[in-house]
């Protein structure tokens, strides 16, 4: 930076040429009328703060007897006059333009080779509103927004301890997206924290517009169909993860926060599981695990059994399936794939279309196509039932990304079943199982706590024990800590009625 204000201004003006939202205000401050310059970008700064606080404070300097001219006076202004909280000194033109682009106001002063960065970030964003993708019946309703600071504030409101650390990274040469990693010091595994930092620091990209950019660049096995990083837009879910020792990665500009490390079973957990009584939560989880199998295997099983292993069907069922298939023009496989593709198309259409149109699509698709296809004798009613059941089952998986993985694998299973029957399905399952067991998410086995088996961690897997029994944090996530920090609450907290003789 030069100490000449005019020179600096020219440099910045060339940098910000053709940027209509770039604004500067020249003013003279102090009794000596030293030229000064305020630079900011309209829209991402809080106009009111600029006008009322910064300009006023600068104008007020005139009333004091202070010498403003001189090369070190930028510090004096910062220390004595600015009625602002977030003020730092910067010294290069790049820093000035960075500051301006991230919503701060830069104050330049004649004769000073340094500038002041005044935090006035004021972007009008969405308010905290209910999470759309992870709705619950019981539990907090708030969801993250697009603003990083709001999001970290929502988290801080839940975890009120200085051991909740938020570390800042800036990713993307052009987007300069702020990314924060949040973890609970002393609970999260230091190795995982170090690994997260290492992987994030290796990211060298042009832009980061959503947390998925980061997810794809830090996951363990990029070619696996299974998601190895969870994401959530619920502050309570992120807070719960952090309290168990997970690391959250906040990205500015998106409500979706990444959570690492993750185990497969957690994709089948919903945050509501922890807000219902454990008996209900456990039963719902059992149903969900059943749905997972149904969503993955039902069409394949139908094909395998009805075209290879008819002997396994109850006789009356065989007769009704045969009667339903009487006169069907295509083989069962083609029928199932046709209906599955139709279903996928309907689902995709339903997501993209505006809500009122979406309903029409589901009516046309579900009722008209389903019914008409059967009546036109193009597909057998059994196939429609199977596909519908599979569709419903796949909605039973709480995690959207995990359900996507299952959707893809379902088609693989269908092909295997159509060519090799149950034997093919078994092969497919074996390969899938082997893959699941070899996966790691930031060093944590993906299939834990089943493989490697850990009885204590089973407390929160398929079953969900009551809160009074959840004495320890999950061992594989909050590992390498001494036992005291793994314990999160007193043991034996089971409520009892008072003794009768008391």
């Amino acid at each position, binding site marked *: 930076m030069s100490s000449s204000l005019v020179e600096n201004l020219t440099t910045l003006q060339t940098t910000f040429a053709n940027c209509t939202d770039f604004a500067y205000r020249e003013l003279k401050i102090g009794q000596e009328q030293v030229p000064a310059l305020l630079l900011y970008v309209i829209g991402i700064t809080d106009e009111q703060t600029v006008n009322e606080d910064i300009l006023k404070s600068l104008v007020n300097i005139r009333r004091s007897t202070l010498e403003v001219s001189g090369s070190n006076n930028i510090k004096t202004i910062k220390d004595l006059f600015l009625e602002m909280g977030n003020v730092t000194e910067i010294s290069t033109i790049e820093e000035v333009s960075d500051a301006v682009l991230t919503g701060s106001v830069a104050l330049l002063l004649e004769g000073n080779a340094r500038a002041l960065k005044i935090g006035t970030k004021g972007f009008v964003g969405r308010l905290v509103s209910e999470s759309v993708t992870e709705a619950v019946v019981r539990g907090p309703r708030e969801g993250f927004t697009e603003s990083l600071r709001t999001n970290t504030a929502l988290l801080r409101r839940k975890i009120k301890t200085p051991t909740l650390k938020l570390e800042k990274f800036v990713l993307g040469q052009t987007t300069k997206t702020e990314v924060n990693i949040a973890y609970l010091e002393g609970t999260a595994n230091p190795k995982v924290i170090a690994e997260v930092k290492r992987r994030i620091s290796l990211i060298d990209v042009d832009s980061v517009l959503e947390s998925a950019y980061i997810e794809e660049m830090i996951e363990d096995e990029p070619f696996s169909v299974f998601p190895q990083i969870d994401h959530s837009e619920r502050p309570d879910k992120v807070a719960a993860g952090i309290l168990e020792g997970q690391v959250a990665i906040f990205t500015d500009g998106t409500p979706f926060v990444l959570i690492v490390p993750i185990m497969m079973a957690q994709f089948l957990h919903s945050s509501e599981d922890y807000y219902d009584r454990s008996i209900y939560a456990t039963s719902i989880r059992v149903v969900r695990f059943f749905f997972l199998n149904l969503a993955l295997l039902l069409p394949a099983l139908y094909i395998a059994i009805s*075209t290879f292993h008819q*002997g396994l069907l109850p006789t009356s069922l*065989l007769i009704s399936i*045969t009667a339903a298939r*009487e006169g069907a023009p295509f083989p069962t496989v083609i029928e199932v794939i046709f209906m599955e593709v139709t279903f996928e198309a309907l689902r995709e259409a339903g997501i993209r279309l505006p809500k009122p149109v979406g309903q029409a699509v589901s009516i046309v698709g579900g009722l008209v196509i389903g019914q008409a296809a059967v009546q036109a004798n193009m597909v057998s009613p059994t196939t429609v039932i199977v596909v519908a059941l599979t569709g419903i089952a796949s909605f039973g998986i709480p995690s959207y990304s995990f359900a996507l993985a299952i959707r893809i694998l379902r088609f693989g299973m269908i092909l295997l079943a159509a*060519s090799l029957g149950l034997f093919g399905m078994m092969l497919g399952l074996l390969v899938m199982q082997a893959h699941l067991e070899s996966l790691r998410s930031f060093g944590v086995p993906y299939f834990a706590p089943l493989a490697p088996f850990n009885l204590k961690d089973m407390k929160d897997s398929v079953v969900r024990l009551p809160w009074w029994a959840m004495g320890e944090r999950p061992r594989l996530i909050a590992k390498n800590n001494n036992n005291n920090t793994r314990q999160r609450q007193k043991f034996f907290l089971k409520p009892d009625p008072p003794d009768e003789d008391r």
Partner: protein
Amino acid sequence: MVCISFLLTGCWDYVEVDHMASVMAIGLDRIPGSEIILLTVQIASPEGKGASNQTGGGGGVAYTVMNCEGKSLSEAIRNLSTQSTRRISLAHCKLIVLGKDLAETGIGDIRDGLKRDREFRRTDWILTTDKTAKEILEKDIELEKVPARGLDLILQKFETTGRVLPIKFSDFFAQLNQEAQVSFTPLAQLEDIDKQVTSQLEKAVGRPLDSEGKPKTLTIGKTAIFKSLRMVGVLNEDDTRAHKWLVDSPKGSSVTLAYAPQAQTKGDKGEVSLNIKDGKTTITPQISEGGITMKIVMTVKASLNETGTVDVNVLNPKEIEQLQHQTAETMKLQLEHTINTAQKELKSDCVGFAENIHNYYPLEWKRIKGNWADIFPTLDYQVSCEVEILSTGMLNNPTHRSEPEE
């Protein structure tokens, strides 16, 4: 591994359900003196069961019967494909019916075929008939669209509550390989029950009855006894029931006996029915100097079902005791009669004596095994029977005793 397995698919088992004919039952007959086997199969046809949406599965026959002949069982099945448009699948076969002539001339040559074929299930029922298997399989059964399913249900019901002991074909052949080489199957018959009832009623009312004649009914009430792969005789209904008591258990059967309470003078002798809730039969051989004596102990827990006109005071323990005693006596007589039939008439050990001796005294069995055929008809036995009446139903007093209405 998955990729390789695609290359190795030599055996392509793929078949759509609508290209498959599910055989529900097979029947086997033989012309006496000839080696040729006549095969009758009953195939479930889906058309009868709501082929399209209009009827909603209204009535109609839902099966087809196909006939074929061949020098062996498998050849006969192969020959079926000359008339069937669909692939024959035996996986859903429920039962195997043996015709009378086949059963009497011996089933040695079909045994291997039945047991070797992968598609026959070990749990298929086996039946014998006193007619030909073809007649049985062509017979409709009331309330059922596919007769094989009806027969399957009848036999399944027998398994827990019946009078006839059904047998699975694997058990049947296993028993034929056991020490006594004796086994049994239920006997399917075609009887004109409708005609019998009608003629009796006509006799009673003295005029022709205004009823439509119905075809013959398929009934299963007797048991065919096989010895060394040949049918040697038939046990009648009562013996069939006692046969079940001996070989299986008395559970589920019912007993009707003539009973007269001695204490009361006004009550006449009448029929009393008991339902056997639970029971157990043990057969133990006892060896003494005089030879082997079979000791048969049957314990029965029953409930009173019906007292007819007999005045049974169920609140009187003495009377219950007497009823128990008389029931036991009746059942004992029946058992003795059946054992006698087996020993004297059929000369085949269908009551399981040989197996018990073999199990209790293997050495002794080895000694007598050679002339078991001579020993069995003269074997001593002792039957004892204990009956306990657990409940007497919802009435305390027989209905005919006048009671003030409440």
